[in-house]
C-alpha cells in the first residue's frame, strides 16, 4: 500500500459522485470574480482620447475615422475595433480609460470560425467644433486698426502737451 498511495482513494472514488462540471451539455460555469474576459466597449462614454490605443501592447485595437454622413462638414465617425484574438487581456486599456468606457467582462467563451466572431466594435461620433466669428486675418486687421487708432490718440495727446 505504501507504494500505491492512491489505491484507497481510487476505490472510494468509485462510490462518490464525479467532480466533473456539466459544461458541454449544461450551462458554462461563471468565471471567477475579477476575471478579465471579453472586452466590452461603451461607445457612449468614450471621449476618443486614444489613450487605450497607446497603452495596448499587442496593438489589438484599431481606430478608423471617416467623415460622418449627413453631419456637419468636419464631423467624424470613429470606429473602435477590439480584436479578441489579438488581445492579451492585460486590462491596461480599461485602467487607463478616463471615462471607464472600456471594461473587461467575465465572458471567456470566445470561439469562432471566422475573424468577425472575435471583433468587439463601437462607433464614436466626433463633432467638429463650432465655427469662430472672425477669421484670423480679420482679427489681425481689427487689431492693427485698433493699434493705429491708439497710436493716433497718443500722438494727438503728445501734441497737445507740447502746445
Amino acid at each position, binding site marked *: 500500500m505504501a507504494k500505491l498511495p492512491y489505491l484507497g482513494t481510487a476505490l472510494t472514488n468509485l462510490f462518490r459522485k464525479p467532480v466533473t462540471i456539466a*459544461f458541454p451539455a449544461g450551462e458554462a460555469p461563471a468565471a471567477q470574480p475579477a476575471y478579465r474576459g471579453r472586452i466590452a466597449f461603451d461607445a457612449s462614454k468614450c471621449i476618443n482620447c486614444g489613450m487605450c490605443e497607446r497603452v495596448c501592447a499587442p496593438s489589438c485595437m484599431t481606430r478608423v475615422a471617416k467623415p460622418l454622413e449627413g453631419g456637419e462638414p468636419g464631423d467624424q465617425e470613429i470606429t473602435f475595433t477590439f480584436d479578441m484574438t489579438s488581445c492579451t487581456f492585460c486590462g491596461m486599456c480599461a485602467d487607463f480609460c478616463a471615462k471607464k468606457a472600456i471594461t473587461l467582462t467575465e465572458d471567456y467563451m470566445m470561439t469562432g470560425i471566422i475573424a468577425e466572431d472575435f471583433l468587439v466594435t463601437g462607433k464614436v461620433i466626433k463633432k467638429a467644433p463650432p465655427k469662430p466669428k472672425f477669421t484670423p486675418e480679420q482679427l489681425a486687421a481689427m487689431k492693427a486698426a485698433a493699434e493705429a487708432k491708439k497710436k493716433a490718440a497718443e500722438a494727438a495727446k503728445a501734441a497737445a502737451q507740447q502746445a
Partner: protein
Amino acid sequence: MLFNLDKKITEAIDDAASKSLWLYHINAGSCNGCDIEIVAALTPRYDAERLGCKLTGSPRQADIVLVSGPVTLQSRDRLIRTLAQVPEPYCLVTVGSCPCSGNVFKGSYAICGPVDKYRHVDVSVAGCTPKPEAIMAGIAQAAAILKEKRRGMHE
C-alpha cells in the same frame, strides 16, 4: 448492396467520427500557458474524454490538431511538416491568441505567424490563455465541422 449496408456503415462511421476525437497538440513556440490549459481540459473537473477526446502522440492518428503559440521562425517548418502528415479529414484548432494573430509578439523578426497564412484554420479559440471550458467548446465546434467535412467527402 444488401439492405443498404454500405450506407449504414458509412453513417455509423460518420457518427463515430464526431464522437471519437483524438487530439494532437503542436506547440509552435507557445509560452506553455495554453498547453497547460489543454491538459487541464482532460482533468477530472473538465473531463474532455466525455467528448471522446484522447491525446495521441503522433499526427498520423489525429482528428483534431491543436496549435498553440505564435509560429516562431524555428517552428514554422516543423508546423507545416507535421500538419502535412495528418490524415484527412481533420480539423485545425488554434488555441489562444498567439496562433491567430501573433499577440504581443506580432511584428517580431522571429515570428512567422499567424497560422492561417499556411493552412486553413477551422476553429479558433481566443484568450490569453483560454479557459479549459472555452477549449472544450472549440473542440465541440470542431467536431461538428469534422462531420460536415466527412459528409463533403462522400459527395
